[in-house]
C-alpha cells in the first residue's frame, strides 16, 4: 500500500526533472511513510513511496525483472501472490524479493495484460519497459486503489493522488463544470472523470497501454449479472454454503501480511461478521476499532458493545463530536480531492488516525456487503416501486414504503405527499435508471444553487446520456434489482465509497483497508445468484444472514439496518467555525462564482434558524461548502512550491540526458 507517480515522454526524450518527480512523490508521503524509490531514464521516470506490509526489508520499489528491462511501481496488495509466485518459479522465473510486487512483474512478463485476470487484490501499478518504451498501467477491478493521469506538452503524468500531478505548476487547475453537474446528480463523477478539467481517472477494471504517443485505454473486467437464462440453479442452502466458503477464503488471504491486521467494527451485520470470522478462525488476539457519535441518532455504540463482549476482543473507539467533524472537513477535502454531499468521510478519517496511533497498518472492513448481497434501502425501494408500477393507482402498494422509511413516514401528515415524491417515474419501470431516478432527481435540485455562469457552461448537457453510454449491453436484460446493484456499484461504490470513505481517508493516516466482500470471486458468484434469493420480501441480505446464522448474535443478525451517516447542520453551523463563515461569505461565493450568493445566504439563514434540517438542505450545505473549500485549496491557493522533493532511499538512474536544474536525489 503506497503512493506511485511518474512522468513519461510521449514524443522524444526530454530531460526529466528528478526535482519534479521528487516533489510529486513527496506529496504522497502520507500513503507510504516507510521508504521511497525512483527509476529514471531518458523516456520515463517512475517513483513510489512505500507503506511496508509484505517483505518489510527487501521490498523497496521500483522492482525490476531478471533482465532489468521491466520496472514496476505498485500501490496495493495481491492476496493470491503466494500461489502465483509458486507457479512463476516453476516456470523458471528468479525472484530477488518475497514481495507481491515482483509477482505482478513476472506475471506481466509472461502474460502481458492477461495477467490482470489472475490477480486477486486491490491495486494500481505501472510497468515501464525500458527497451520498447512502453508503459502499462492498470487498476483493480472494483476501484479500491486510485490512479489519475493527464497529458501536457507531450508528457504523460500519472499519480495516486491528483495533488501530486498539480505539484507541476504547468498543469492547469480548473473545475470541470460537467463533473460538478455529475457530482450534484450522482453524488460523484462518472468513471473516468475527476472534478478537475484536465485530470482523468483510470476507471476501475481498466488498463492503459502507452507507447510513445499511441495510447489505448481498455476494459478488462466489469460487474456482471445473470438473467433467467444463465443464473445458477442452486438451492438457497447451497448458495449460503458457497458464499460462506468464499468469504472465509477471502478473509484468510486478506490476513496475509508481515504486520498485524485489525478490523473495523461498526456493530452492523457486515463488519460484525468479518470480525467474528477472524476471531473464531484465524486470530484470537484480534484488535477492533469503531466510531461513536455525540448525536444519538447516528451512534451504534449499543451494538458495538454487544459484539465486543460477544467476541471478547480488544476494542478501541473514537468519539466523533459535532465540533470535531466540522473542524476536520477542510483536511478531509484535501485528501478526498472531490466535493462531498455528506460528512460521512470525516469520522472515518478520525478512525484511521486512531488505528495508526495504535501501531496498525492494515484493517479489514465490511465494505461491499450491502452492494453485492442486496442490503441498501434503495434496492428494496426499487422492488416496491416496481411492484407499485403494476397498479399505479393502488393505495396499498406504496404503503410498503412506510416499512422501508419509518423515520420519514413517522408523521402521518406527510404520507399522501410522500407518495407523490416516490411516484416519480413509476409509469416507466423499464427506464434504465428506474431504481435511482428519485434519488438523482432530488439531488439535482442542488444545481439550482449554481451561478448563472456555471449553469450556462453545461447548458444542454444531460448526465443521464453520458451514463447510458457506459452501460454494458447485457444491462438491459437484467432485472430491476440487478440494474440497481450495477448502478450502485459502478458509480457510488467505485467512485465514492471506495475513495472518499475508503482509500483516501485511510491512507491519509497510512492505513491500508482490505475488503473481503469485494473479493472478485464473491462478486462474480453473487452476480449469478437469482435476485429473489438476495432480498426475500423486504428482508435484505437474506443470503448473508444465513451465512452468519450461527456465527454472530441473533440481536445483531436481526437488528434494523442503520445507514452510516454523520451529522451535517449541527457540525458545520453550530460550532462557530470561522472557515465556514469565510467560505460561505458573499465575497468568497462571488469570487469563485460557482454558486449564487443570494441563494447560499438564504440557505445558511434557514439552516441556522430552524430546529431541524431537511436531507436536501443538509446535502446542499455540504455540497456548496466542500466545493468552495476544494476550489480554494486546489485552485486559488495551491501551495505547490512549498513542497520539498523526496529524498529517495533507492535510485536507479539510467539517464544520458541530464536536467540542468539541481536534483535532490540520493543514491543508496
Amino acid at each position: 500500500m503506497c503512493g506511485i507517480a511518474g512522468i513519461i515522454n510521449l514524443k522524444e526524450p526530454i530531460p526529466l526533472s528528478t526535482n519534479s518527480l521528487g516533489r510529486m512523490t513527496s506529496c504522497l508521503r502520507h500513503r507510504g511513510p516507510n521508504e521511497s524509490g525512483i527509476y529514471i531514464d531518458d523516456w520515463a521516470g517512475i517513483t513510489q513511496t512505500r507503506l511496508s506490509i509484505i517483505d518489510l526489508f527487501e521490498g523497496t520499489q521500483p522492482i525490476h525483472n531478471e533482465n532489468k528491462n521491466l520496472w514496476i511501481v505498485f500501490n496495493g496488495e495481491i492476496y493470491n501472490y503466494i500461489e502465483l509466485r509458486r507457479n512463476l518459479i516453476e516456470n523458471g522465473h528468479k525472484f530477488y524479493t518475497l514481495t507481491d510486487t515482483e509477482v505482478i512483474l513476472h506475471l506481466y512478463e509472461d502474460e502481458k495484460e492477461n495477467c490482470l485476470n489472475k490477480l486477486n487484490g486491490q491495486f494500481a501499478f505501472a510497468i515501464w519497459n525500458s527497451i520498447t518504451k512502453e508503459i502499462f498501467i492498470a487498476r483493480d477491478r472494483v476501484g479500491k486503489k486510485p490512479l489519475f493521469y493527464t497529458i501536457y506538452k507531450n508528457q504523460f503524468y500519472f499519480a495516486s493522488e491528483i495533488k501530486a500531478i498539480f505539484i507541476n505548476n504547468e498543469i492547469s487547475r480548473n473545475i470541470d463544470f460537467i463533473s460538478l453537474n455529475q457530482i450534484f446528480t450522482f453524488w460523484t463523477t462518472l468513471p473516468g472523470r475527476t472534478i478537475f478539467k484536465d485530470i482523468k481517472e483510470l476507471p476501475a477494471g481498466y488498463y492503459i497501454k502507452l507507447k510513445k504517443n499511441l495510447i489505448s485505454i481498455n476494459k478488462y473486467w466489469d460487474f456482471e449479472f445473470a438473467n433467467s437464462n444463465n443464473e445458477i440453479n442452486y438451492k438457497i442452502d447451497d448458495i449460503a454454503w458457497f458464499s460462506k466458503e468464499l468469504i472465509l477464503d477471502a478473509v484468510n488471504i486478506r490476513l496475509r501480511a508481515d504486520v498485524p491486521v485489525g478490523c473495523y467494527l461498526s456493530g452492523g451485520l457486515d463488519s460484525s461478521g468479518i470480525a467474528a470470522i477472524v476471531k473464531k478462525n484465524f486470530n484470537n488476539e484480534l484488535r477492533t476499532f469503531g466510531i461513536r457519535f455525540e448525536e444519538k441518532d447516528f451512534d451504534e455504540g449499543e451494538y458495538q458493545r454487544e459484539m465486543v463482549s460477544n467476541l471478547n476482543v480488544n476494542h478501541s473507539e473514537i468519539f466523533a463530536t459535532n465540533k470535531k467533524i466540522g473542524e476536520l472537513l477542510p483536511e478531509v477535502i484535501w485528501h478526498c480531492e472531490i466535493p462531498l454531499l455528506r460528512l460521512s468521510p470525516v469520522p472515518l478519517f478520525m478512525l484511521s488516525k486512531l488505528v495508526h496511533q495504535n501501531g496498525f497498518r492494515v484493517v479489514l472492513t465490511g465494505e461491499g456487503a450491502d452492494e453485492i448481497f442486496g442490503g441498501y434501502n434503495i434496492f428494496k425501494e426499487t422492488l416496491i416501486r416496481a411492484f407499485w408500477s403494476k397498479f399505479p393507482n393502488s393505495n396499498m402498494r406504496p404503503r410498503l414504503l412506510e416499512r422501508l422509511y419509518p423515520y420519514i413516514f413517522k408523521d402521518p401528515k406527510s404520507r399522501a405527499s410522500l407518495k407523490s415524491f416516490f411516484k416519480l417515474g413509476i409509469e416507466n419501470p423499464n427506464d434504465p435508471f428506474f431504481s435511482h431516478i428519485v434519488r438523482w432527481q432530488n439531488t439535482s435540485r442542488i444545481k439550482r444553487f449554481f451561478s448563472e455562469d456555471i449553469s450556462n457552461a453545461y447548458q444542454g448537457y444531460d448526465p443521464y446520456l453520458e451514463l447510458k453510454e457506459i452501460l454494458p449491453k447485457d444491462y438491459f436484460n437484467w432485472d430491476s434489482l440487478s440494474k440497481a446493484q450495477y448502478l450502485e456499484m459502478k458509480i457510488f461504490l467505485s467512485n465514492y465509497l471506495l475513495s472518499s470513505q475508503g482509500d483516501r481517508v485511510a491512507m491519509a493516516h497510512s492505513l491500508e483497508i482490505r475488503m473481503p466482500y469485494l473479493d472478485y470471486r464473491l462478486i462474480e458468484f453473487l452476480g449469478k445468484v437469482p435476485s429473489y434469493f438476495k432480498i426475500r420480501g423486504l428482508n435484505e441480505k437474506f443470503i448473508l444472514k444465513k451465512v452468519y446464522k450461527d456465527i454472530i448474535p441473533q440481536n445483531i443478525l436481526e437488528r434494523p439496518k442503520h445507514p452510516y451517516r454523520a451529522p451535517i447542520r449541527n457540525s458545520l453551523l453550530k460550532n462557530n467555525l470561522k472557515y465556514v463563515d469565510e467560505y460561505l461569505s458573499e465575497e468568497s461565493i462571488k469570487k469563485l462564482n460557482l454558486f449564487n450568493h443570494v441563494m447560499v445566504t438564504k440557505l445558511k439563514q434557514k439552516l441556522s434558524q430552524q430546529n431541524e434540517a431537511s436531507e436536501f438542505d443538509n446535502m446542499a450545505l455540504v455540497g456548496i461548502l466542500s466545493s468552495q473549500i476544494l476550489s480554494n485549496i486546489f485552485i486559488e491557493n495551491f501551495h505547490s512550491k512549498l513542497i520539498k522533493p523526496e529524498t529517495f532511499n533507492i535510485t536507479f538512474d539510467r539517464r544520458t540526458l541530464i536536467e540542468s536544474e539541481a536534483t535532490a536525489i540520493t543514491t543508496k
Partner: protein
Amino acid sequence: MEQIENLKNFVVNNFLFGKSNLLDFDTDFFEKGIIDSTGILELVCYVEETFNITVKDEEIIPENFSSLTKLNNYINQKLNHISEVIKKCAV
C-alpha cells in the same frame, strides 16, 4: 391575490432560496422537485401558523398541496368554512 403571493414568497424563500423564476401558480411542487419528502411538513406548519387553521392528516394530499393555486383554494375553503361556522354560532 395577496394571499397567494405570500404563499409564493414562502415557497420561493424556503425551497427555492429566492429563485422565483422556477415557480408559477400552477407549477406542481412534486413533479418539479420543488418540495421534497420533508419539505411538505414545513409547508403545513407555515399554513397552520399563518392562517390559524388546523390541517387534518387526510387533507394533506396532492389535490390540496401540490401547487400554489391548489393550496390557495384549499386555504380559502378552510377559511370560508370557519367563517360560516362562526356566523352560525353568532346566529
